[in-house]
């Protein structure tokens, strides 16, 4: 008894401190570092530009194309309504500053300076200038963490806009992603536009992703194409976060990005391995 008491007198405080440190570390781990990111955001706030820079001088050609695009989009919506095919379009977005990058080397993430107070929810779509960049995987009141599509674990079902050939993209930790096709002989050539496909369970269909840079049809087990992402992933400053109509589905089956039925069908047809999307 005396020995125990003496040991306690000598090591009690140390033991208490160690368990306190372990306890708080575990707490921070379970809360996904929310507190730390809040502090980080507070410190980073003064360095963030208050308004995103908008390029004023737009090419007349670009303006013309934009107007034609709006026209075509509304026509498309009318036709879809006539067909009775109604899908909720992502509407309204929050502009958020990028205040940090991933806290370790194996994940391609960015930290945004807006969170649940501004209406951002887990699963929201994040897009930059030119295309999607990722989706929100965690939110705190004032920050949110985004898993980029360039992350090796991030796999998204996509399609070639011109020929409707399906496949999925796999991140490569850079501004390029690899697209694997489900077909053995896809109709694809450099310059083709790649957008998210309707098989994707995480992203709504039709969002721009990038442009095909080169094609390797002899690749085994499936033909591959290198896709250059249209958003400048490595130097993002401002992004637009828009609510995701598929967010519920994405949470329910967050492990596969492809519709199971279609996936099985496609896999048996082409022998492509499963495409997983880890949250």
């Amino acid at each position, binding site marked *: 008894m005396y020995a125990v008491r003496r040991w306690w007198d000598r090591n009690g405080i140390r033991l208490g*401190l*160690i368990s306190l*440190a*372990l306890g708080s*570390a*575990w707490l*921070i*781990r*379970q*809360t*996904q*570092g929310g507190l*730390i*990111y809040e*502090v*980080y955001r507070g*410190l980073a706030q003064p360095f963030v530009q208050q308004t995103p820079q908008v390029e004023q001088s737009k090419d007349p050609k670009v303006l013309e194309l934009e107007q034609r695009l709006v026209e075509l989009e509304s026509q498309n919506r009318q036709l879809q309504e006539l067909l009775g095919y109604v899908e909720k379009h992502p509407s309204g977005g929050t502009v958020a500053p990028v*205040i*940090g*990058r*991933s*806290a*370790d*080397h*194996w*994940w391609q*993430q960015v*930290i945004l300076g807006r969170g649940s107070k501004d209406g951002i929810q887990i699963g929201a779509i994040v897009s930059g200038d030119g295309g999607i960049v990722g989706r929100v995987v965690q939110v705190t009141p004032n920050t949110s963490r985004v898993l980029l599509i360039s992350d*090796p674990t991030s796999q998204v079902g996509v399609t070639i806009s011109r020929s409707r050939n399906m496949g999925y993209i796999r991140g490569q*930790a850079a501004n390029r992603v690899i697209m694997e096709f489900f077909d053995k002989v896809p109709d694809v050539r450099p310059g083709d536009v790649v957008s998210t496909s309707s098989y994707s369970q995480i992203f709504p269909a039709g969002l721009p992703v990038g442009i095909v840079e080169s094609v390797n049809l002899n690749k085994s087990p499936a033909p591959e194409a290198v896709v250059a992402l249209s958003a400048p992933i*490595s130097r993002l400053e401002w992004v637009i976060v828009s609510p995701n109509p598929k967010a519920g589905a994405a949470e329910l089956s967050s492990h596969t990005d492809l519709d199971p039925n279609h996936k099985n069908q496609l896999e048996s047809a082409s022998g492509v*391995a*499963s495409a*997983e999307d*880890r949250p």
Partner: protein
Amino acid sequence: MIDLTRWHPTARQALNWGVTVGSVLLCLLVLPTRFPGMALLDVGPNWLLIWVVAWSINRTVFEGATAGLILGWLQDGMSSPNPTHALSLVVVGALTARLQKQRYIQEDFISIALIVFGMAVLAETITAIQFSLQTIGTASANQHLGKIWLYHQRIALTSAILSSLWAPAVYYPLNRWWEHMAEFEQPQA
């Protein structure tokens, strides 16, 4: 400079812990940043690893491993808990404490940088092994393994170079502080 000798030992102890916890917090807050000059190929120094090495170098294996566990959990919270960072940092802490520094290496900037270099490579390798174990059993394991280890080469080298270059920035002030504190403890013990 405040005269710490006149402080009550408990207050001094509290200050010591405060400084230690504060330095960890500082390392955590630097993690998501990529200041120019601190990043190569979008990979920054592994600040928590530098901290664990600085802590463990003059301490016991148990203390090193505990610090590794705590900081590993913290990094889990900051990025992703799967696979855990705690394993690699525990190994780093324990191994650094085990190193027979007195016999083989002198304690200076160069040897600290060297230890951090080796430990950074080790830590990234352990993470890569954890990723590999996760993919084993899936259909396309072969394909994934190749990618993981290709990526590992890049990360391990970049992280090791940057971490070892920045190691003195964490090690020097912290070590000075701890030595300063140890001087107070000495006469009483």
